[in-house]
């Protein structure tokens, strides 16, 4: 019988079904991309109205308030399909102004109808503005966080059937809920989009004093109020405007390991980072948007997309100072790391004799992608170069979870003297090859410089 001698090289076979897993991965990948687009669409249509106050109020100066307290008041929308609201006069609370409070009514301009006991009337225009804010819905709040949590448990080698199923389930449940809730909310709370601007004050008594009803021309000629303090966010007609800011940044990031689980032996290199962001600003001091950044390095690859909110300080001349925080969805893939060889004189918790030694070989596994939920904070100085262009100098801190994987194999090395002058040195592998994954949390401190374009 022939001896079973075959000189074959070490071969490790990856047992994978070929076609179907690839299709599923493509579908999951496509769904992720669709989710991102879908999230962007939903950013502009949401359930905010459900969380808004159902009442709004007009500020009144004391003489106007005193006069109106003696009259009959009614607010209506001045439309063919007339809708009216009862009003109540309230004493000053935090400032010296009285308020005329009423349940919200949709429309950019309402009419306050003032009637006195003698039958005289006056129609006063009350401006209203359509409110804009960060859209609160399941898709823009809970979904990214839940998906970030689910994907952080994904194993890049093993099957992630239940994770993927849970992610798809959560996404479709939340998106379907939003798809129903958003139109329904818009219908039910259609009036709550509107509010009287806080800068509008009825301070002139002549504007509200009643007129003789015989003078029809005067009675029905209603002067629209003009905003004396026009800003980029509130025009002369008291209508809100928002700005969209696009910016591109480049910078360098220094990494600092803040914690490590399982003793990661590979570090994270300092390297250049690039980012793109868009923000929506609806108020002078508040901005929200999306920020995407990635690093430029051959040793590891990380992509981070975050939703962020920021406070904008405008006290500087021709410039602004912005600081904010963000949370989002990040991926990490390590491409290069050293293979390692270690020795130990412990085996299964027992100390070995002088004739034995445990050899530990760690073979780095490249290109395994992991997901995590990064937190970030930033501060940046923006100086205007022109009307709608600014340059930015900033500092950003981002938390990154770095994973490093090794195949670990242990061997036992023994020495033996067979006869005088004859020794045997034997190396025998022990146990199974195991995959060892270590997680480290890093803070990346980035200094950035960039350019911003503002679109009105």
């Amino acid at each position: 019988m022939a001896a079973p001698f075959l000189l074959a090289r070490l071969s490790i076979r990856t047992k994978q079904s070929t076609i179907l897993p690839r299709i599923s991965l493509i579908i999951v990948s496509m769904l992720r991309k669709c989710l991102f687009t879908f999230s962007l669409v939903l950013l502009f249509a949401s359930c905010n109205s459900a969380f808004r106050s159902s009442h709004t109020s007009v500020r009144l100066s004391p003489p106007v308030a005193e006069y109106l307290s003696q009259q009959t008041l009614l607010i209506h929308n001045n439309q063919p399909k007339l809708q009216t609201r009862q009003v109540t006069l309230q004493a000053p609370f935090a400032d010296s102004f009285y308020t005329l409070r009423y349940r919200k009514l949709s429309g950019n301009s309402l009419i306050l109808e003032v009637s006195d006991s003698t039958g005289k009337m006056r129609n006063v225009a009350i401006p209203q503005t359509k409110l804009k804010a960060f859209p609160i819905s399941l898709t823009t709040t809970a979904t990214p966080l839940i998906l970030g949590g689910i994907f952080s448990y994904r194993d890049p080698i093993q099957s992630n059937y239940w994770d993927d199923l849970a992610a798809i389930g959560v996404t479709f449940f939340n998106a379907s809920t939003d798809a129903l809730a958003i139109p329904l909310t818009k219908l039910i709370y259609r009036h709550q989009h509107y509010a009287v601007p806080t800068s509008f004050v009825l301070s002139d008594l002549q504007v509200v004093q009643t007129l003789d009803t015989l003078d029809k021309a005067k009675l029905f000629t209603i002067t629209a109020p003009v905003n004396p303090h026009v800003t980029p966010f509130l025009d002369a007609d008291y209508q809100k405007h928002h700005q969209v800011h696009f910016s591109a940044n480049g910078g360098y990031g220094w990494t600092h390991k803040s914690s490590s689980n399982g003793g990661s032996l590979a570090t994270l290199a300092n390297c250049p980072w690039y980012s793109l962001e868009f923000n929506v600003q609806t108020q002078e001091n508040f901005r929200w948007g999306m920020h995407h950044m990635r690093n430029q390095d051959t040793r590891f690859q990380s992509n981070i997309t975050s939703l962020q909110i920021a406070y904008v300080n405008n006290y500087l001349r021709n410039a602004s100072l912005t600081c904010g925080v963000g949370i989002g969805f990040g991926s990490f893939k390590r491409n290069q790391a050293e293979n390692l060889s270690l020795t130990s004189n412990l085996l299964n918790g027992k100390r070995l004799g002088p004739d034995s030694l445990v050899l530990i070989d760690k073979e780095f596994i490249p290109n395994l992608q992991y997901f995590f939920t990064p937190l970030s904070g930033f501060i940046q100085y923006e100086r205007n170069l022109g009307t709608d262009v600014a340059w930015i100098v900033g500092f950003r801190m981002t938390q990154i979870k770095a994973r490093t994987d090794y195949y670990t194999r242990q061997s036992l090395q023994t020495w033996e003297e067979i006869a005088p002058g004859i020794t045997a040195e034997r190396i025998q592998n022990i146990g199974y090859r195991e995959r060892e994954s270590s997680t480290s949390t890093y803070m990346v401190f980035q200094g950035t410089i960039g350019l911003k374009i503002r679109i009105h």
Partner: protein
Amino acid sequence: MKSILKLSLLSMVILTVSSCDMWFNEDYRFKILQILQNNQSNKVYNKTVVSYGGYNFNSVYVRDTQTFFRSIQMGDTAQILMENMYAVNLYAVDTVYFDIELTDSQQFNAKFTRTYIRNPYQTLNDFVETLRF
């Protein structure tokens, strides 16, 4: 809405089917590499008889023997590599014996046996042994 439901159902079916096997497996292996290193001041003659037993294709237990004759120059090495012992001809090879005889033209003479036992609870069994004389 219908298309979303269809897409989700399709994804679930594909994920169910595709989740069958994504594990990373190793081949079973029992490999022995023996290196003889001659530190004597003369050429050493070596006779090694490798013997082992296992089951053939007819499920009959048989023993197999292979004999090697080498002469190893002063300061030189000789090697015997046994690989893929699981896969060819014999199954369930558990123990391999190397009966070694070393002689030179002078007084040096040694005869001993080295035994290599496979651990059935691990997929990979690699032995590398260096004998120095």
